[in-house]
């Protein structure tokens, strides 16, 4: 793991991965959207609105995966003082917030025709909203200190504390009797979803994951460059003009 602590090596690795991951995410999302919009059946109960699910479910998965990434890299940063893990956590939180927001908005758009309401205070929705606030708190805390490394450490502790919410989101549909339907893909035995619907869903999920990796790499790369710039500026500020002896 410490091999990747070297920013130069990370930058080389990132620029090797980036073209592939960005091409793959474009391809997968395009294919997923094609299957989702044209080549999958309408639901027998929900009709055409079921197609919202192909955006809603992957963004919910990614919102949680993103938080897990953030918590994991925060743990790595706190335990091993890994310099890049801090940057990964910082880079991941706005992406996760965006996915959570997308999940909440698409779910709300789906809920209006299906449940007859934009919002219901049930356990799944509420815990997802809490996740959104946790992301906001993380982003605010990182930028609240004059010294960036202090912000990173404080935010890492917060990310670990907030991780309790992830299992609550996952199991909220099992623990409480909610309006939100229980899991239909990730359960033991056969998933209770039609293969024609599962294909675009999985394509979209993979596409979203590639997209997440792409944006994360770009953001980490930007963070590395920004911290280099900061270091250069600091040395320029602190550099005392030295009187150069002039040869006569």
């Amino acid at each position, binding site marked *: 793991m410490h091999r990747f602590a070297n920013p130069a090596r990370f930058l080389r690795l990132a620029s090797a991965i980036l073209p592939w991951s960005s091409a793959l995410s474009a391809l997968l999302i395009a294919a997923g959207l094609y299957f989702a919009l044209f080549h999958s059946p309408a639901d027998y109960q929900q009709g055409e609105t079921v197609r919202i699910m192909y955006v809603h479910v992957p963004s919910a998965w990614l919102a949680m995966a993103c938080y897990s990434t953030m918590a994991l890299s925060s743990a790595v940063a706190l335990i091993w003082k890994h310099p890049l893990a801090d940057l990964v956590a910082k880079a991941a939180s706005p992406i996760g917030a965006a996915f959570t927001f997308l999940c909440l908005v698409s779910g709300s758009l789906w809920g209006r025709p299906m449940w007859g309401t934009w919002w219901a205070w049930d356990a799944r929705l509420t815990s997802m909203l*809490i996740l959104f*606030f946790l992301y906001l708190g993380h982003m*605010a805390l990182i930028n609240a200190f004059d010294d960036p490394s202090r912000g990173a450490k*404080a935010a890492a*502790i917060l990310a*670990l*504390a907030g991780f309790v919410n992830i299992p609550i989101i996952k199991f909220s549909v099992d623990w409480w009797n909610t309006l939100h339907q229980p899991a239909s893909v990730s359960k033991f035995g056969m998933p209770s979803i039609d293969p024609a619907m599962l294909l675009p869903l999985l394509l979209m999920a993979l596409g979203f994951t590639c997209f997440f990796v792409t944006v994360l790499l770009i953001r980490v790369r930007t963070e590395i460059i920004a911290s280099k710039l900061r270091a250069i500026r600091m040395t320029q500020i602190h550099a005392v003009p030295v009187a150069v002896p002039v040869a006569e």
Partner: protein
Amino acid sequence: MSRLFGIIHRDLRLALRQGSDSVMVVTFFVLTVVLFPFGIGPEANILERVSSGVLWVTALLASMLSLDRLFQADYEDGSLELLALTPTPLELLVLGKVAAHWLTTGLPLMVAAPVLAVLLNMNADGFVTLLLTMLLGTPTLSLIGAMGAALVLGARRGGVLLSLLVLPLYIPVLIFGVGAIDAAVQGLPVHAHLLILGGMLLAALALTPWATAAALRQALE
């Protein structure tokens, strides 16, 4: 153990001599609750319906009111650094400070709550449960809040940031606290709600001192 009591004793004495922190908190609690009958209207049945929620939400906000002073004063005058240098583990110090915080805010809120419940027309069946939920819930709030207070030490606009960090983590306590009272008023069993509140208190008691101490350590670096 004596060190723990030493810290609690010190903080209580400071609170007593500097005065008015718990009085402020309770006054805020009473005033905010009293606002509701003006805002919602004085119909007895509506007030009775919302009483548990109003009491819990305002108690939660009131207990947050004094949080930013929990470590801030000691951090600024340097005594936090001295306390951290003593052989007492920082986790124990945190527990002592949280206990003192609860004694100066949570306990007064608990005492004031039944009086306000009468003002809000709460059904008498809910009183015991109200006290029990407060007894189990407010220490959890203090424990979680201490973590937030330690995280924002030295931050810009720490007070506003603190509420952003702490309020999402307060929501579970609020849900089960209000749930228990509503169940009691309707004559349903409250056992499960209270057990969950107790479980959250135990989990917070076991886990948050570590996080708070870690946050304090990085603030003192």
